[in-house]
């Protein structure tokens, strides 16, 4: 029997969809071990985000609010998570491998004397023990890891779990008094990337561009993304050279996506990039060099100059749809 604490990702107003993938992880673990799960919504003025999570079968939704948690930093956030986990007797604490999850959850593990598995993509059996499957070496290998401590901490790779639908019922919302404690770290400012498109990790279609698009990165990728309601991503090289913002980066050290349809435009397909997109359902590669490794994973490859092929693709999709 397990008591799992799911830490929600949210913007105070509403939970992000990746929280539903983490709930799916919790439900799969309960199917193996038995038990129940609670959800924690930690922030400031985040009551509406908590109210939106009462229909997923949690034993309780804990609302944890403090002025210092409006822009949570790892040290205080981790203390609050650990305090709550202790207070409800949680033996598994799970959060998505979002930037806050990666930043704070190892500190939670230390506070709970727990072992931790990062970026979990599955739950498997290993000689009678429950093991967490996770990618290693940029996903070229996967490891089944067993955590030998009484309390276990995990971050969950959202693209490997389903964003589950509400199951009905009404979990009670409970308030937990937060004490993030003192820290010598201070939030200064956030410089957000402005976009009206869907989140990369939530989009059904991703249009990703490489360095070869140069200063026409936007004019080439945006019309296709907008036509298909997709998000825009980029290779590391395109971000390094300043053609796309940092949070567009897809790959081993950037975002990991698994949309229904992925366009790799002028992307060569280095192993680090493939680590972030190779589980996409349908992959389309457009590149003028037929030898690039991206063609080894693409379902449909088009050897062509992206500067002419992509605008032509946009107009022809429009034509067949009308």
């Amino acid at each position, binding site marked *: 029997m397990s008591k799992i604490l799911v830490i929600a990702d949210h913007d105070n107003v509403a939970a992000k969809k990746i929280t539903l993938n983490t709930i799916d992880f919790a439900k799969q673990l309960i199917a193996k071990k038995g038990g129940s799960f609670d959800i924690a919504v930690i922030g400031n003025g985040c009551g509406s985000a908590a109210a939106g999570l009462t229909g997923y079968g949690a034993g309780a939704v804990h609302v944890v609010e403090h002025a210092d948690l409006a*822009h949570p930093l*790892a*040290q205080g956030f981790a203390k609050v998570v650990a305090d709550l986990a202790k207070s409800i007797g949680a033996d598994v604490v799970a959060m998505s491998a979002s*930037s*806050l999850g*990666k*930043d*704070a*959850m*190892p*500190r939670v*593990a*230390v*506070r709970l004397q727990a*072992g*931790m*598995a*990062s970026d979990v993509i599955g739950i498997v059996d*290993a*000689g009678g023990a429950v*093991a967490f499957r*996770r*990618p*290693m*070496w*940029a996903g*070229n*290998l996967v490891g*089944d*890891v067993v*955590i*030998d401590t009484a309390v276990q901490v995990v971050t969950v790779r959202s693209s490997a779990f389903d964003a589950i639908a509400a199951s009905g019922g009404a979990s009670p919302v409970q308030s937990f008094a937060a004490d993030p404690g003192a820290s*010598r*770290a*201070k*939030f*200064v*400012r*956030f410089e957000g*990337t402005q976009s009206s498109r869907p989140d990369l990790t939530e989009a059904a*279609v991703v249009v990703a561009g490489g360095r070869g698009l140069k200063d026409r990165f936007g004019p080439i990728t945006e019309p296709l993304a907008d036509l298909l309601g997709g998000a825009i991503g980029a290779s*590391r090289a395109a*971000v390094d050279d300043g053609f796309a*913002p940092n*949070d567009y980066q897809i790959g*081993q*050290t950037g975002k990991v996506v698994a949309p229904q*349809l992925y366009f790799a435009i002028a992307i060569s397909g280095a192993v680090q990039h493939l680590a972030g997109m190779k589980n996409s359902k*349908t*992959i389309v590669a457009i590149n003028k060099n037929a030898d690039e490794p991206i063609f*080894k*994973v*693409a*379902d*449909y490859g*088009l050897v*062509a100059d992206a500067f002419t092929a992509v605008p032509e*693709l946009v107009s*022809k999709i429009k034509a*067949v749809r009308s």
Partner: protein
Amino acid sequence: MKILVSAKRVSDPNAKLAISGDGKWVEGDVEYVMNYFCENAIECALALAEEHGDVETVALGVGESDETGRFVRQGALARGIDRGIVVSADEAIIDSDLIARVYQKIVEKESPDLVLIGKQSVDGDSNQVGQLLAEYLDWPQATFASKVEIKGDQIEVTREVDGGLEVVALSMPCVITADLRLNEPRFASLAGIMKAKKKPLDEYELDDLDLGDAAPKVRIAKMTTPSGRKAGVLVKDVDDLVAKLRGEARVI
């Protein structure tokens, strides 16, 4: 000011990897490279030392002692780090938690003002050591740094996070983990390589560090190679692509 910086060797993720006979690690006969993110951490330490003067830089490597020592010398000391420390450990068994506790013990011996660590190692890909260390020390942290500036008694760090960039200010001592856009790592010069041969390199065994319980908390039960994706087809032209996406894949 003193900076402790990470120098970890990793088996090259671009090389062909074979799983060892017991299924728990990769075969020993592989190419090793310096962990990419440690190269960024080392470069950051050197740049801060050049900019501010009166900075001592110390590189720490944890792993198989001879080889790790060679990497600390060639990858860190030859680039300009002042001295090195190697802690001998079995890389197939030691977990992020135990590595962080080793760092904690070295921090207690060395009392650095700043610990700079690669944000993740590109073999295990766990992305934990810097954060674990910061919590063991009860220090503030700034992970995924793309810019580090010392401003008076504060360090201002720009972090690459979901949705954009976050700027935080830390007072020392603190832990910072390096991301790839932090800098462009320099190459070692010939003079640097010659000098590195004479720089001090202290070696410890795990038993020397008074770790208490030196058991890892996490173990690999089994490793496997995921089934690869098969290459699809090359389409003739844009019309062919549109027809296949619509008729066959049914995605547009």
